[in-house]
């Protein structure tokens, strides 16, 4: 396939400084295939800057002064500069397909850019998209007519199936209405590392590791293990209940009380 010559065994974040120049309070953060991580913290605490550092493979040259190592050493230039070799896919709320294309044309454009034969890859990407989103898409739909959730789901599927990127960064995509648990399960199965910037308690508890940001720096790294299992089950139920409510509102119901949703 298209993957770079050296497989990514690990990605290491070395500490930088907070906004007033004090060193960050950790030795290193290692990320491996199959890891799931969430980045949490108030607005302006440095969450997006953290994943930006990973995306650009910062070498002490960003405001945070962090350094990113690949397999323990400084990554080679073409790994960073050629998007077809880059092992990272970043998807944000503002990432868009600007060309007015059908889903099928969009995906085949990407296949062509990667010099890949179709061999069912295109259908696989659409199938995977439809596992992430409730509103199914098909190849003949136009990219510009997809909802936010469908677009985000398609980009994640594209990153997994066509880019085959081992590391996927998602910046606040939870509002887009995708099945977060399916995304996380699938990426874990496929041995992808996934890093979420999130304000969503469900996403935060679904991931194995939680990085808490404050004042531009990493404040805490939590690895809850089994400790949050009860809370996770409760939040999963609330999330499902919210989905039911959302569907009822969408279908035009008046809600006299929310008890019907099981809360």
């Amino acid at each position: 396939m298209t993957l770079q010559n050296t497989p990514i065994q690990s990605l290491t974040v070395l500490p930088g400084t907070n906004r007033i120049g004090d060193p960050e309070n950790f030795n290193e953060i290692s990320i491996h295939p199959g890891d799931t991580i969430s980045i949490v913290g108030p607005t302006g605490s440095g969450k997006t800057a953290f994943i930006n550092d990973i995306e650009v493979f910062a070498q002490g040259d960003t405001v945070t002064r962090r350094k990113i190592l690949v397999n323990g050493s400084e990554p080679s230039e073409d790994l960073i500069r050629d998007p077809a070799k880059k092992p990272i896919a970043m998807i944000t709320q503002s990432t868009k397909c600007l060309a007015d294309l059908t889903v099928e044309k969009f995906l085949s454009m990407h296949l062509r850019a990667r010099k890949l034969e179709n061999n069912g890859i295109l259908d696989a990407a659409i199938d995977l998209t439809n596992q992430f989103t409730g509103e199914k898409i098909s190849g003949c739909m136009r990219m510009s007519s997809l909802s936010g959730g469908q677009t985000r789901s398609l980009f994640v599927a594209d990153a997994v199936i066509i880019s085959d990127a081992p590391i996927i960064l998602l910046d606040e995509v939870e509002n887009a209405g995708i099945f977060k648990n399916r995304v996380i399960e699938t990426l874990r199965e496929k041995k992808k590392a996934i890093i979420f910037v999130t304000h969503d308690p469900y996403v935060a508890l679904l991931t194995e590791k939680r990085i808490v940001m404050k004042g531009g720096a990493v404040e805490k790294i939590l690895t809850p293990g089994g400790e949050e299992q009860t809370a996770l089950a409760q939040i999963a139920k609330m999330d499902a209940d919210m989905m039911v409510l959302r569907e009822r509102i969408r279908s035009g119901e008046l809600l006299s009380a929310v008890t019907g949703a099981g809360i």
Partner: protein
Amino acid sequence: MNVRLIAIAGPPSAGKTAVVKQIIHNLGTAKVAYLKIDVVQAWEDEELATEFGIPTKKVYSGDMCPDHMGIMVIRDALLWAEELGAEYLLYESAGLCLRCTPYTTNSLGLCVLSAVSGTHAPLKMAPLIALADVAVVTKIDLVSQAEKEVFREGIHQSAPGIDIIETNAVQGTSMRYLMQIIKQMKPAESEKDTLRGVPPLGVCTVCIGKKETGWQEHFGVIRPLAVPDNLYRGE
């Protein structure tokens, strides 16, 4: 001469000034002078003078083609920068017809393109890209992975060997590669430097103020609609 010339070209709103700001920020303000050429309105010189305290100049080309104007004044501008003791002169063009390539032999030619300008844009701007040293692709954070890759292919079709830097210029991502190239630049030779390519013909009866339409009313550089080749080639 101790001044290095960085010529920055690209369409309006591509992010040329954002790239200029990143370069100044990385070089340090002590070494840089800036020249902006535009048609009737430009504020970049005042903005940069206020933000960085560097010497700046602007020229309005008015009735003359702005790149033509640049060609006229660039030698003087290099001497101006040298007198000030600057090590770099950043020269930002107006970015209009995309047919001229204001890069000179000893300059670093940067063409700034926006990733949101569509996947065919690099092909339409081929002359601007072909003679540049580096293509800086801005607003890279806004487009999908597939479009990023296709845009890059378009640039390589226009200029196979060109260096491409993809950046979110407001944040300054990946600027380190541009700075590595800038650090290796040779100084300009104000009197010996020439243009890298031949600009399109700029003297015609339209240029001198004839307003009539139709080739029948003009002489010199003319063409009717029906000709075998769509592209006008100078005589």
